[in-house]
């Protein structure tokens, strides 16, 4: 009787332990899988950030500013006309000194217009650079936002998986608990000299115990003997 109780208790303990291990293993697997997913997404996010940073450091920005200003200046220069455009009808008969003066004035007008355009390009080029940065950042933020949402949503799903994993060993744990309870009962019975296999106890002396209570052996004995 005592040996049976001991075996049942041991088996129950083993079953419960196995159930706990199953649950722990499943939870660990879920956590590891999520860590791998988060790591992959984080790696993508880091790569994007580094890419963004690489395009917006001071050195790169200065080069890009120079390019933007140059593009503006080139567009303005290409649009301008070097040849004199104002050819007054009677100027063909003008003295050479007047024609020379006109050429000088036209050249000066061209130079001034070009200079003004270049100065404007220098100012406006910075605006172009900032627009380029804003568009670049907007795209990077969109991509980072997506990754961030992926990470968050994935993390939220982990909660469900951990709940499910925690229930993974429930069957083994229930069997273990049953065996342990039975083992305890058998153990108490053995301590009191009761041998159910020998049928020495009259059915009328059997007491139905509430399953939720862990019985003290003394109380168990008191209940058994109370009816006598």
């Amino acid at each position, binding site marked *: 009787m005592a040996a049976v109780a001991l075996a049942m208790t041991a088996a129950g303990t083993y079953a419960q332990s196995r159930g706990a291990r199953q649950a722990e293993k499943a939870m660990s697997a879920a956590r590891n899988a999520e860590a791998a997913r988060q790591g992959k997404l984080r790696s993508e996010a880091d790569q994007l950030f580094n890419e963004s940073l690489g395009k917006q450091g001071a050195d790169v920005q200065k080069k890009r500013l120079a390019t933007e200003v140059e593009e*503006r200046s080139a567009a*303005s220069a290409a649009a301008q006309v070097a040849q004199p*455009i104002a050819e*007054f009808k009677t*100027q063909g008969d003008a003295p050479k000194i*007047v024609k020379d003066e006109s050429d000088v*004035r036209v050249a000066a007008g061209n130079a001034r217009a070009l200079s*003004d355009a270049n100065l404007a390009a220098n100012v406006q080029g910075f605006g172009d650079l900032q627009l380029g940065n804003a568009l670049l950042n*907007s795209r990077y933020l969109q991509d980072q936002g997506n990754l961030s949402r992926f990470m968050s949503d994935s993390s939220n799903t982990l909660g*469900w998986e951990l709940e499910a994993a925690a229930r993974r060993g429930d069957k083994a744990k229930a069997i273990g608990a049953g065996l342990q309870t039975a083992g305890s009962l058998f153990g108490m019975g053995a301590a009191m000299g009761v041998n159910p296999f020998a049928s020495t106890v009259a059915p009328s002396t059997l007491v139905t115990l509430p399953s939720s209570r862990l019985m003290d052996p003394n109380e168990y004995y008191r209940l058994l003997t109370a009816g006598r």
Partner: protein
Amino acid sequence: MCSGGGDGGAAQARADEQARQARVREGMDKINKNFYGFDEPFYRSRAKAYEDFANPQLEEQYNKQEQNLAYNLARSGLTSSSEAARNAGEIQRQYNTGRAAIAAEGINQSNAARRAVEENRADLIAQLNATGDARAAASGALNRANMLQQQMGFSPIGNLFQATTGLLGNAAQAGYYDRNAPGLGAFGLGQPGRTSASRVVN
């Protein structure tokens, strides 16, 4: 039990989440593909469209200014003079400054197009994230891309020539006092017997 098969639906939730991620990535690819046409040549074409629109207006303004200047120089007996040369230089400067300003505004217009395209793209991505519907995002991207390909309106350039010299100032106003100008006659009003079709011939 839930559709997860005894796991409280966890497996289904994970599958749904992964499918959603895949749809968002797919939708992003489709948006990018549909917006692929908005490249540098497209934006340069926007700048050129503006220049094509504005330069004829500048030419028209210049021609009027030149005619009036020539008229004012002749009236003042200064056609072959250093004053004429000075005005030629000034009108050349203003013309080229106008050309440069139009080229710069062309770039501004191309920048405005970039902003408009990016705003549309951002809207579509927000829509994709809200719905996770790659097909709707792709369809929206195509529609928006087609709309953006249409020409946007440009405003008239305004007067680019200024009265920086006395003669140019007179030239700018010369048309006001031109007795051949139609005046109210252009609207069928004004002096009796004078219409926009009638001209005093000198």
